[in-house]
């Protein structure tokens, strides 16, 4: 095993969930064998290897076993069966400021926490100033940490963890806290870690963060590893599983008659909306083409019909809204069923399930108006490293 590698071998973890956690000897004596619990396999047979210098993201919805896996890697939990082998110094950030003693000063806590992460006293002396500088707590370093704000706690915790010079850094969703500037500082530090060829295991609920820094991802679903490999595919799978319970599958056809958003028409209906790659209707890769097909039914002919679509990002940001009118098209449709097809040549959006809202109207007031929210989902996949909402396919050069 090379330094900086982690081998997770057939790891399973069983939890016993008791109805009443506070069992006493009295209860055990009075009701032997009547322990009320059910078993839960938080992890079952997870196998993967993290190679030195790689950055691995662990994705999974709530309750998928991410945190259990991370705690097992850090050695806080022991697996029920299987084993984790770690070679190299591992610093785990399961919760920022976890080993802190509130009554002690920041200075004392740096020493205490540093020792817990495996440093010798003189080694902490050597990096002490750097820790203080990184945490930006120079003024408060001799204050008891119970008086720290949560932001200060986090800064000190992260500063200690990254400065103990670990070969493997394990981070659990901690970057979600702290102000934006410090978050950026942490991300920069993580990227420097990568550049130094250290191993990082990173858990996040945010696929964007994972995509931005990880070389590979592990996707957990109900305690089982369903994917280990390239990030964009893993993120797609993760999103698919995340949406399994709510929302339909990709490119779902939505029955317009179920719409409650119909405001003023009896004669005009949206029967079905489909979105996706032209032809197949499946997921669209960034900069690939997409199609939105609206099937319209009407009881009487409509003159000058305007069809509108709106694309909303997974986070709820409206990315685009346009209508057939804007595109210089006016349709007159006859009684019966008609399909209106919007074609987008190159969709610049990053990955995620983008919501599509659809509307039908005619110019002027008093005409029919139909608006359907969440009419379909446009699933995007992305394998680049851009952050934000869109990939602009930019280039850069020296002039």
């Amino acid at each position, binding site marked *: 095993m090379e*330094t900086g590698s982690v081998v997770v071998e057939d790891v399973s973890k069983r939890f016993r969930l008791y109805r009443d956690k506070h069992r006493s000897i009295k209860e055990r004596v009075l009701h032997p064998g009547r322990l009320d619990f059910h078993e839960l396999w938080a992890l079952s047979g997870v196998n993967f290897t993290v190679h030195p210098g790689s950055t691995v993201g662990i994705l999974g919805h709530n309750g998928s076993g991410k945190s259990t896996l991370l705690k097992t890697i850090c050695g806080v939990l022991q697996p029920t*069966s299987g084993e984790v*082998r*770690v*070679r190299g110094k591992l610093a*785990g950030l399961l919760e920022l400021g976890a080993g802190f*003693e509130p*009554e002690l000063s920041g200075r004392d806590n740096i020493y205490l926490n540093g*020792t*817990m992460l495996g440093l010798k006293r003189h080694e902490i002396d050597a990096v002490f100033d750097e820790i203080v500088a990184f945490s930006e707590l120079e003024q408060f370093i001799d204050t008891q940490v119970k008086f720290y704000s949560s932001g200060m706690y986090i800064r000190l915790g992260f500063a200690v963890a990254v400065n103990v010079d670990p070969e493997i850094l394990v981070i659990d969703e901690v970057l979600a806290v702290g102000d934006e500037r410090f978050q950026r500082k942490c991300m920069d530090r993580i990227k420097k870690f990568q550049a130094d060829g250290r191993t990082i295991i990173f858990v996040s609920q945010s696929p964007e963060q994972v995509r931005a820094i990880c070389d590979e991802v592990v996707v957990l679903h109900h305690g089982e590893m369903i994917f280990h490999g390239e990030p964009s595919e893993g993120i797609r799978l993760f999103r698919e599983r995340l949406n399994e319970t709510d929302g339909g599958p990709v490119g779902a056809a939505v029955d317009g008659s179920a719409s409650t958003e119909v405001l003023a028409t009896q004669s005009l209906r949206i029967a079905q909306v489909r979105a996706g790659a032209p032809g197949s209707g499946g997921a669209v890769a960034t900069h690939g083409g997409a199609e939105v097909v609206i099937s319209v039914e009407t009881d009487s002919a409509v003159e000058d019909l305007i069809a509108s679509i709106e694309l909303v990002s997974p986070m709820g940001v409206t990315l685009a809204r346009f209508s057939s009118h804007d595109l210089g098209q006016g349709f007159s449709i006859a009684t019966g069923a008609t399909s209106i097809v919007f074609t987008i040549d190159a969709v610049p959006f990053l990955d995620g399930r983008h919501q599509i809202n659809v509307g039908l109207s005619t110019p002027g007031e008093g005409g029919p108006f139909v608006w359907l929210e969440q009419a379909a989902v446009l699933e995007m996949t992305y394998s680049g490293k851009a952050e934000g909402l869109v990939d602009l396919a930019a280039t850069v050069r020296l002039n």
Partner: protein
Amino acid sequence: MAANPPAEQVPTTTPEGEGHGVRIVAAGVPLGRRFSDLVANRELLGALIRSEIKVKYKNSALGVAWTMVAPAIQLAIYGVVFGIVFKNGIPDYLIYIASGLLVWSFFSTSLLAGTGVIVGRAGIVKKVSFPREILAIATVGSQSIYLFLQWSVLALFMVVLGHVPDWTAMPLIIAGFATVLLWATALSILFSAINVYFRDTQHLMEIFVQIWFWMTPIVYSFHAQVHERVVGTANEWLSWIYLCNPITPVVLAFQRAIYGDVTVTNTTSHLPYQVLPSWPLANFYELLGAVFVIGLLLLGFAIRVFSRLEGNFAEEL
């Protein structure tokens, strides 16, 4: 599973050689490995002891001096009750009690604090990885620091009162302290883990320690009040029960060394009065040695139980 190489195959000798070995997280880590983990974490032990002492007296005016107050009050009470009210006739009675009481209160406080330590520090146990026995060991460690402070005050008192210890028996203190330290550590580790699963352990321990105190010849004399009364009678086994209490040989050793006088003049009847057993010193060492060996076995057992129970700490807390 079958395709995977067995765990033992992992070499600890790699090109890097020195530095870090492979850490294995699995259910049931062998005892030897746990001991070596403990040794590897001795710096953490020091840091935890320091932080515990600092935290305890951080916001108090008297600071560490408080460690003297509780035993001093206890000494005063027993001194008044048994020395003055009931007149048990032991001269320099305060020194007699102190020689046993200080080491006893080290043992009992370690045991009580140690039992609650894993539950009490759940925050760390759930989030940070290190051999958790260290928390129990650190509790015993900080208590031993207090014990040393209390002993230095006792030494001062002995100088003031002009009471001379038995210098030839002084090594007994080292043997006695090693023994009681071992037992306190082993029992703290054992009960700290059990307490996670049965929170009653903490309360039972408080009662148990009370009974244990009176079962140990601290405020009374083993020889005069126990041994002489039962020797030669049908109840002679009672004396053996006393010696089965692992703390009795420890307390006797401390009394033998610090109090020193085996036979004194009774302060009330003015007759010769044998307070301590008249055994040769070698017998004390033999007794302590036996208790020490049992303590070692107990420590191994405690760490074994601890490692079995440790796996589920994070979910039980």
